[in-house]
Structures are given as C-alpha cells and as structure tokens.
C-alpha cells in the first residue's frame, strides 16, 4: 500500500511538472514576452535593456529553471490586464467554479444513481428503455447548445431566470444542470451496468434464497458491491466537469476559473491564462489521485504490490 501510494504520488507530481513545462513551452511559443510588456513605441535599446532586466536575455534553461522555481513558490507573474499577481486572480475565481461543479456533480449523482438502479432492476422494461435513451441523449447533447437552449426557454421566452451572472440560487440552476447533464448520462449508464452485473452474481441468488427481503438485498448486497466503478466514474466526472466549466461559464457569464481562462486568452494575458490552466491541471490530478486511493479503500480485493 505504501509503495502504491508513493507511486501514485510520484505520478501526480510528474503530471504537475509536465503541465508546468508545457506552460513554459507555450509561453515561449507565444512570442517575446518583453514585447507584450513594454509600450508599443519603445525604442530597440529600451526593449533590449528590459530584456536583460527581466532576465529574458538568459539562456533558455536558466529561464526554465527560474520559471519552475517561481511557480513552486506560487509566483506565476503579473497579469498583463489587471496588473495583479496572476495567482491571486486565479484564487479569487476558484470558489465560483467549485460551487458550480459541486452543484453539477450533485445533480448528476442524485438523479443518475437512482435512475441507474431503477433501470437495472427493471431491465428491459419501459423504465429501463427510457433511462437508457435518456443517458445516451444526455451524453450526446453538447453543453454549449444545451446552455443556449435553456437560456432561450427560461430566460428569453419565459423570463424566469436572468441570462447569466452569479447571485441568486436560480442563477445557479441553469449552468448547474447544463454542466451536469453529460455526467448524469454517464453515471446512469454505469450504475445500470454495475448493478446488473452484481444482480447476476451467485451471492445475490443465495441472499434471496435465504429469504432476505428485496430491499435488504438491494441495499446491503447489491449497492455495496456495485459501488466501486460508480465511485470511480463520479470522480472522473468531477475532473471532466472542471474542463467542461470553461464552456458553460462562458455561456452563463459565471465568474469562475473557466471564464477567466477564456477571457485572459482573448486579451492575450498569458500569465493569468497559464496560471489558471495550471491550477486546473493540478486540481484535476489531485482529484484523480483521491479517486484512485478511494477505490483501493472501497475494494480491499485490489492488492497493491
């Protein structure tokens, strides 16, 4: 277990490190940072002096080392647009994204789990058909379109909810549902599959033969044994949601991390964009790590060498 933990931790660190290196590469491909920082009409001499002063005249590997060193200390540079530390901008936006993704995953789990279980118990019947068709639909409708349709229906036509922004619980509802629908489809589909597989197991037949009540069988035996893959998919959906939030936040003008990424790329505010992307990557890796560990805890049969 300790060895497994160590290897997973090493993998997470590797991910973070590669993400950081990727950022560095992107920053350099983006062109001379000095030209972005100095006034447009600066003389060549002034630009050269700035280049030396800010360290862009150093060899690439020195710059790379410094970039990594600073990033490790939480210094991602200064936002070109807001003239604030990029990291603080990112941290400021984090709660909004956390709120949105939590609501989405909650929606997906609260609706998807019972739906999947229901579909499995009623395999082949109407409820199953409906749940299956629904889950395929949920996975196929692109979130940006669903978002627009919801705005069209509830904001433009019915006038029930403002088209965007953050504040009232109603404003959380539309983006939450939009972001959560894909996950809802996945959770339903996988719950159904896992429960079906467990239902066919011998120990379920035994439990029924002993005369256990159907509810006991379901809650004590079936759900407990079907939990593993379901927990995994929920964890994976969480990391997927963080990426999906980029689109949904833009549509609903939700002041989160995703919208910050899109806006800062629009304004060519690279330090902010990269800090935000980096933060997203780190969060996603940490969630993945957590899910893997949880998976091991839930399923003692997996022996980690």
């Amino acid at each position, binding site marked *: 277990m300790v060895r497994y933990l160590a290897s997973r931790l090493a*993998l997470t660190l*590797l*991910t973070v490190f*590669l*993400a950081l290196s*990727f950022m560095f590469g*992107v920053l350099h*491909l*983006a062109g001379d940072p000095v030209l972005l920082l100095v006034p447009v009409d600066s003389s060549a001499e002034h630009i050269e002096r700035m280049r030396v002063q800010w360290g862009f005249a150093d060899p690439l590997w020195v710059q790379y080392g410094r970039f990594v060193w600073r990033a490790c200390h939480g210094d991602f540079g200064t936002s070109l647009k807001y003239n604030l530390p990029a990291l603080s901008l990112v941290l400021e936006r984090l709660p909004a994204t956390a709120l949105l993704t939590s609501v989405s995953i909650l929606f997906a789990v609260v609706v998807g789990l019972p739906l999947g279980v229901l579909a499995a118990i009623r395999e082949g019947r109407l409820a199953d*058909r409906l749940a*299956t068709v629904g889950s*395929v639909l949920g996975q*196929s*409708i*692109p979130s*940006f*379109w669903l978002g*627009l*349709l919801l*705005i*069209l229906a509830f904001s*433009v036509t019915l006038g029930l909810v403002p088209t965007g922004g953050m504040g009232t619980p109603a404003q959380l509802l539309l983006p939450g549902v939009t972001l959560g629908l894909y996950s809802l489809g996945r959770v339903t*589909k*996988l719950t*159904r*599959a*896992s429960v*079906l*597989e467990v239902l*066919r197991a011998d120990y379920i037949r035994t439990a029924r033969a002993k005369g256990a009540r159907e509810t006991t069988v379901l809650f004590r035996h079936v759900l407990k044994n079907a939990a593993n*893959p379901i927990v*995994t*998919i929920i964890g*994976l959906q969480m*990391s*997927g949601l963080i*990426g*999906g939030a*980029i*689109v949904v936040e*833009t549509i609903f003008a939700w002041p989160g991390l995703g919208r910050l*990424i*899109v806006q800062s*790329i629009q304004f*060519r505010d*690279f330090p902010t*964009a990269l800090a*935000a*992307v980096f933060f*997203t*990557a780190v969060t*996603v*890796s940490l969630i*993945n790590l957590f*899910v*893997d560990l949880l*998976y*091991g805890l839930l399923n003692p049969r*997996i022996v980690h*060498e």
Partner: protein
Amino acid sequence: MSERQPPAGSRLPGPKEAAGTAGPPPGARRLRPRLGGGAAWGIAAGLFLLAEAILAVGAPLFTGASPLTGDLEQRLLAPGTAGYLLGTDQLGRDVLARLLYGARVSLLVGVVAVVIAGGFGVCVGLITGYRGGWLDRVVSRLVDVQLSFPFMALALSIAAVLGASLTGIVVTLAISSWVLYARLVRGESLAMRQQEFVEAAHALGAPSWRILVRHVLPNVIGPAIALASLEAGRLIVAESSLSFLGYGIQPPIPAWGNMLAEGKDYMAKAWWLTVLPGLAVSLTCLSTTILGDWLTEVFDPRRRR
C-alpha cells in the same frame, strides 16, 4: 508492474464499461443488445451518418444558395419562407446552405482527427503492449499524465498560441485523443501475447512486425474501430465548442460552432439560428455514439468466444 491494470482503467469509454451493459450470462438466449434492437439502431445511426456525409460532400448539388453571401434585404427570415427552407441568418444568408457546408468542416475535422489519432494510438498500443519493458512503462505513464490534463484548457492554450486554423484544430484534437486508442489496444495486445497462435507464429520464426500485423492487429482492431466511432462524435462536439468560443473555425467560413456563436445574439428574434446548428451537432454526436455502442458490443471479445 506492467501487468497491473491501474484502477483508473475505466477512464476511457472503452468496451469494458459498455460491455458490462450487455454481457448476457453464458448460454443466455438474449442476444439482442440494449436500446431495443441494438443492431437496428446501430445501422440506422450509420445510415444517418452516411446520408449526412453525402449531403456535405455534394452540398452544391442540394442547394443553389451560397453559404458565404446573403441578401441583406432578406435578413432573419423564419424557416419555411418561400425560397429559404430553413430561413436566413442575420446577414441574409441561407441557413440550409450554411448547415450543409458547415457539415463539411465538422465531418472533415472529425474524420481526419480520428484517423490520425487512431492510427498513431493503435501503433503505439500494439508495440508497447506486445513488447512490454521500459518503453511500455514510460508510455503508460505518459498516457496517465495526459488523461489527467483537462482537454479544453489544453486546446485553448494551443489555439491561443498557434492561432486558430483548421490544421491547428485537427492536430489539437488528435493529440487529445490518441492516448485512448493506445491504452485500449495495449491491453488487448498484452493479452494476445499469451495466445497460442501468437506463440506458434513466434516459434515458427515469424518476425515481430509480421506477428503484430498479421495476427495481433486483426484481433484488436474491432474495439479500436468502435472507439473511433465514439471518439468521432466527441471530437466533433469539441471542434464546435472551440469554434463557438472563437478559437476554432473562423467566420465567415461556416461551421456549426461559429454559426451558434453568431446566432446567439439574435436569440430573441430568431430561435432557428440557435436551435438548428446545435441540433446538427447533437444528431451527429448521437449517431456516432449509438453506432459506437453497437460496434463495441459486436466486437466485444467476451461475446466472440
């Protein structure tokens, strides 16, 4: 080490997950997959995609209207107006023509990205799975790392730096997708290594590449094709999301994503500009998903035996 499938193995929408849905018990009579008659749905989805491809390629045959120039006096006409089956947009351009020409972009991007990603991923998976060793370990780790990087953030940073272009989009999508094939095929290829006919070919002195191409590849290509179908839909949605955000296909070239982006400003007056392009994306993605699910079941090794 290399034999241990990490718990995150269910990360990809691979056959494992979908197979669990069908997997009739041995000897069961119920061979019809889910979604009612899986074959009928799968074939219908395939035919729909074929029809769409014909409409896209032969766009000039089906509509005389230009997707680029419109009649400014015929702006925002509702669908059904004489001469404009699906109405016109804010510049008086024929929506039907733009949808058909937009299909060219979406399908082209989807197919090319899938072919590049699939070809590369299958090769990498075949070789690393069959050979094992340090190469396998390094590639497997890289795959894990990349899977934990949020795709949208990656795509946006690449698009921001390289500028939006058709080639850029295709490359970005292919980069995001190849790891799934590598992971899937690696597992299958690893299992193939122990099969008797592979050992026999090896004993007869067949070179590795020949064994891979003649004996291993035909046995692993089915699930890869099923994955390709699922991925095509996901990538088409990703392309339209990028175009919608303004980092994909640029106007005035019609693409479903940028049509939605332009149309959303006229949502209150012209619902069809929001509804129709999204419907096109959704139906395409729905078809590839149904087709992919069906192919996954057809090629499921558990059923073949």
